[in-house]
């Protein structure tokens, strides 16, 4: 599904990813944790195709294709979805019109027939229920005046509409109360399938009680320095990151 080899990336003069290796197979859920500034959000942005980041080395293949050669919109149409850490507010653009336009371009790319207005609304109805998103929110301007929790639910709603094969959740849990967290996690879990993979980027182990990962990785200084199963997340919750940093420094010494 996703194969990252020796990825190096920088923004302006600062190197952030420094030889990252990582592989996701179909149906797997991977959690990426790590201290602040370790490169977690950079990884999400680089995979989604944000242009501020300069790739200085390595390769990324997505379903056997060269991901780095694709534009942001091509990646989305191919089935990669990024749930933004900070969803953008777009006044004047209705959620529904935007999704209709996006879905139409995505379906065209995938060789799927266009939905009729009725089919589209039925899909909106079905998928918004998944994250308990109020019908009024789906009609409002994209994220405008949404609470933090509503924005994150809207991300998962869009994900469900666009039906990706790989979803990257960038700190989708940050700032959510327990109810909102449960709703978001339920939405994600409902979408888990043997064909669909998830990369869950988070600071907090708490999310992983709800979205149980197959693997947990620790990102530090732009590299994955430790991998394990969900027990690793519990250990990180308990012991913090200092022991990992020490291990890395000791190995480098």
């Amino acid at each position, binding site marked *: 599904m996703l194969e990252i080899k020796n990825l190096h990336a920088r923004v302006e003069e600062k190197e952030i990813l420094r030889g990252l290796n990582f592989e996701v197979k179909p149906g797997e859920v991977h959690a990426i944790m790590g201290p602040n500034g370790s490169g977690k959000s950079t990884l999400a942005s680089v995979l*989604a*195709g*944000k*242009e501020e980041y300069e790739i200085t080395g390595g390769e990324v293949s997505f379903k056997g294709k060269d991901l780095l050669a694709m*534009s*942001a*919109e091509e*990646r*989305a*149409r191919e089935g990669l979805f*990024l749930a*933004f850490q900070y*969803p*953008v507010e*777009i*006044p*004047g*653009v209705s959620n529904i*019109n*935007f*999704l209709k*336009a*996006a*879905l139409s*371009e*995505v379906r065209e*790319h995938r060789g799927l027939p266009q939905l009729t207005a009725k089919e589209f609304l039925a899909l909106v109805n079905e998928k918004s229920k998944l994250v308990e998103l109020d019908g009024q929110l789906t009609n409002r*301007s*994209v994220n405008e005046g949404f609470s933090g929790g509503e924005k994150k639910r809207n991300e998962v709603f*869009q994900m469900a509409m*666009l039906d990706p094969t790989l979803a990257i959740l960038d700190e989708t849990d940050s700032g959510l109360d327990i109810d909102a967290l449960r709703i978001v996690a339920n939405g994600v879990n409902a979408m888990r399938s043997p064909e669909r993979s998830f990369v869950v980027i988070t600071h907090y182990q708490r999310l992983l009680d709800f979205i149980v990962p197959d693997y947990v990785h620790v990102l530090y200084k732009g590299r994955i320095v430790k991998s394990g199963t969900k027990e690793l997340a519990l250990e990180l919750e308990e012991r913090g990151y200092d022991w990992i940093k020490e291990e890395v420094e000791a190995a480098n010494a």
Partner: protein
Amino acid sequence: MEATTVISNKDKFIALNESKSSVLKNSWANEIEAAIAAFTTFELPTTRHEEWKYTRTTRLANENWKWSESLENSGLSNTIIEDLNAARIVFINGNLSLADSSFNNAIGCTISVNENIAASDIAQINVAPATNVFEAFQRTNTSAAISIRVEKNTAAETPLHIVHLITDNESISTPAIFIHLGTGATLEVTESFHGNENTKGLTIRGLYAHVGTNARLEYNKIQAEKDEQFHISLDNVRVENDGYSNFNTLTIDGGWVRNDLRIDLNGQNIEAHLSGFYLPRNKQLVDNHTKVDHMYPHCMSNELYKGILFDQSTGVFNGKVYVRKDAQKTNAYQTNSNILASDDATMNTKPELEIYADDVKCSHGTTTGQLDEQAMFYLRARGMSPDSARKLLTTAFINDVLNKVENKIVRQHVIDALVQKGLLYI
């Protein structure tokens, strides 16, 4: 030493002035006399004039304009607003074309034209003296005129559509529109300007509207001329106690466009909205000068202008708001927002608020920036092409101006025109 003769740019207008007489020479005689005198004193403005700082008149003055009597109507069918069922008043090359007009069945208003307009009808509108050479020129040489009257407590049921079309190369048009709304009267007007391809034209159009006590005027001006066409609108609206005016200036196209809109709030408890958008491309220029004058207490004015500037185009916005000493409890709002869609586009914007009353709520804000890159990326990350994403964002940007057009059929017509030009997304 040899003497050099400086030929003033105004000379061509002087010649044009001498070869024409106004269709209103009997019914507007006093004003024409004043305008003839004013014409001799005003110079053609240059960029040294504060009101014309960013808008050059050189190109306009260098053309060889002529008066035209042509009623050639090719392209007129494109000006129809489907489903509006409006009474149509058609001007072609500045002349009233009765053959193309159909306003006899307009319900609730009285329309008279050219020499048939009564002096008393014009007098009732109380037009302010001309303040520049173009105003003086238009009044001296009114090429055709209509007067629309809606009497006391009457709602003009039939919407009016005033159409201007340029089909004769190098023709100059100087029509005048007079509107009088009696106490409690209501009227909806859509006025649209068009011209054929590769046809030079200059329009200097005067609008003189009087919105009586408790009356309502809804006015949509749609500008859809071509690159070769020059346009000066002289829009004058005077509103009385408890009156309402909603004036929209929608500039879809046009080579060189200057809008002078003046709204006088001549009473208390008046609500005035003035909004507009402009989307110049190529080397087009769109200049909106507005003047809102609050003279009495308890009035509200709300101004919203938005522009997206493409290619090497230029935009100008100058919004004057006067709040006189007696105009306590005034609410006056002004916003001008712009997006530069090209590195070569220029926007000059200047709010000018002069407030002499001390118990008022006034605000103004101008912004000029690029399309929001964060929003662009967000839309593209959902699979939208950069082109669709850009159109969706520009649509959102001017949407609040479009929503100021109350008549949904007119609004949809404008949206369709914008989509056809590849400017909007639906």
